[in-house]
């Protein structure tokens, strides 16, 4: 296809992506260097028969005037990145000098909002991704062994958790697990502890969200693995059976190597999706004990008084860097393959 034709064909989609994905990333980058204006205060002298008092009040007129003149805020450089709500450089230095043991230091650091969210996000990725791969693969193997006639409805049932939006999916589970729901109430009865509930324990909340993540993402892994299993050639499998290989050996030495590229694909996609975990936190109303990076951004953007554009943007940029680190190995490999192919 000539370059000119290509250009006209690609222009609409390219324009859409540049305007609404490329530019916003740049806009986020610029915003992260600005912070919202401080409120301008003025001294007001109030006199009454008993004497004069000077009080400090917010000058609303001046504040809104400067906000209108410079809507982006004041230039803050890397100030937002290093403040307490983000990398917290100063706080970490202080903790390092003040705390006695290393574990106390770690304890202090993991209480800072950004590090707390980072740790939750990474824990979520670390537990959900491998389990999704495993469960998805087992379901695929298991459904593949069922008679072809009844597979259709079984597949439909299996993919339900995947097609609903995460918010709805987590709500549906939450209403059952909640202390007034069917599962939560029964667990309370079973343990004989009327105060046992999801919100009472941080560990329980984390485990619930991770279980939700596995529940929601496994169907995707299942679908891809199931399709890949259909392409496994039968001859080597039959040869292995004749040679006396057990079922596990066949899976390990024939099936897995054949679908290996698909496994990396699923791992990559689910890692990318898990890194942006955010809706389940709202669905489970778990803001108190579990915060993710995406949730921090959301929280800044729905702030009641003034939207914290700078703070949200700084967290966004660091999230994008996180994604880049996750994607880097894949991109490097693709680039190498591309160079060899040329």
């Amino acid at each position, binding site marked *: 296809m000539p370059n000119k034709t290509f250009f006209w064909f690609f222009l*609409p989609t390219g324009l859409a992506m540049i305007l609404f994905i490329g530019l916003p990333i740049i806009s986020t980058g610029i915003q992260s260097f600005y912070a919202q204006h401080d409120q301008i205060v003025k001294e007001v002298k109030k006199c009454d028969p008993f004497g004069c008092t000077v009080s400090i009040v917010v000058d609303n007129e001046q504040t809104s005037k400067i906000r209108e003149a410079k809507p982006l805020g004041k230039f803050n450089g890397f100030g937002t990145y290093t403040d307490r709500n983000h990398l917290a450089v100063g706080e970490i230095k202080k903790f390092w000098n003040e705390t006695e043991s290393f574990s106390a230091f770690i304890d202090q650091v993991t209480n800072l909002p950004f590090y707390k969210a980072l740790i939750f996000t990474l824990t979520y990725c670390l537990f959900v991704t491998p389990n999704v791969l495993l469960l998805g693969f087992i379901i695929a193997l298991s459904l593949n062994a069922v008679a072809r006639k009844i597979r259709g409805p079984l597949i439909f049932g299996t993919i339900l958790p995947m097609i609903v939006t995460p918010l709805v999916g987590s709500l549906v589970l939450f209403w059952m697990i909640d202390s007034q729901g069917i599962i939560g109430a029964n667990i309370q009865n079973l343990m004989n502890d009327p105060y046992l509930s999801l919100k009472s324990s941080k560990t329980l909340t984390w485990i619930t969200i991770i279980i939700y993540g596995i529940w929601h993402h496994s169907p995707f892994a299942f679908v891809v693995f199931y399709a890949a299993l259909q392409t496994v050639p039968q001859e080597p499998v039959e040869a292995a059976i004749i040679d006396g290989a057990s079922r596990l050996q066949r899976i390990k030495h024939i099936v897995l190597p054949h679908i290996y590229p698909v496994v990396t694909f699923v791992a990559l996609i689910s890692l990318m999706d898990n890194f942006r975990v955010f809706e389940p936190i709202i669905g489970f109303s778990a803001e108190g004990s579990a915060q993710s990076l995406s949730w921090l951004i959301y929280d800044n953007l729905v702030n009641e008084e003034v939207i914290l554009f700078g703070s949200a943007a700084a967290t966004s940029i660091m999230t994008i860097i996180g994604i880049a680190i996750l994607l880097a190995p894949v991109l490097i490999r693709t680039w190498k393959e591309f160079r060899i192919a040329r």
Partner: protein
Amino acid sequence: MDYGLDKKTTSLKTFNTIFIIVWLLIACFPFIWTFWGSFKVRADFFSRSDWWYAISAFNTLIETGGKFTTNAYGQAWTEGEFWKASKNTVIVTIFVVSISLFLGTLGAYALSRSTRNYAFWLLILALIFRAMPHITLVSGYLFPFFELQIWGILPTTIVVLVAINQPFTLWLLYSFFKTVPRELDESALIDGCSYFQTFRHIIMPVMWPGVITAGLFSLMLAYNDFTVTALLLNQENHTMVPKIQSYLGTNQHEGNLMWAVSSVVSATAPLFILVMFFQRQIISGLTAGAIKG
């Protein structure tokens, strides 16, 4: 060909059946339970005293005189203005699907027929864009949209959702276009068709399965989106998913939980019916990128 070499023992078969039943229960029961509970009153579905009330409908009987009630649906759709939210969702979904298919087919066709290096790099760029968490993009939109005064209205959200959806649509359609042999184009070009005519009259007619799959995924994205619609639309224009969230209530005002339950059912039912009909296309779409690419 199955020669019956792979003999499964009875215990393995039983184990397999049990596993599938347990998994299906885990996957489907929450939805069935919510559907069941949406016809009860709050005191039954969220019972403090006894969870069995949800089944025996103890309070529903007292409050409404019947074992099932559609009060939650009625109130959410009228008082809760869920009808407006569903109208907005329908508008957003229709526009997002048609626009993103139009842009996506053109772009993906060009990508699949180009032999240059830049086509490869554009695909990689699309992959990187696909990895961007939506909330980071939204934090980039908000400020410019406020300044341009285009925040809160449906057209903005539609355009944003189309753009966010493009990388995935491109990849999906690209892998479908790749399966259409090039000879088809070439013969049309030799016969004097322009590239656009070839695309319109020769390639599109054989591409319908791929287009339907891509359309379904656009539909699911637009229909299910929470991040973009919650933050880019004002209260008046909210679609279904942010509306459901607003029923949940916050610290400041108490929500109406049964509205949320019935709206969840109202919002999920059309999606399930759709998936029931188009299951094959969805599965082929999810695997297209993985198996062929």
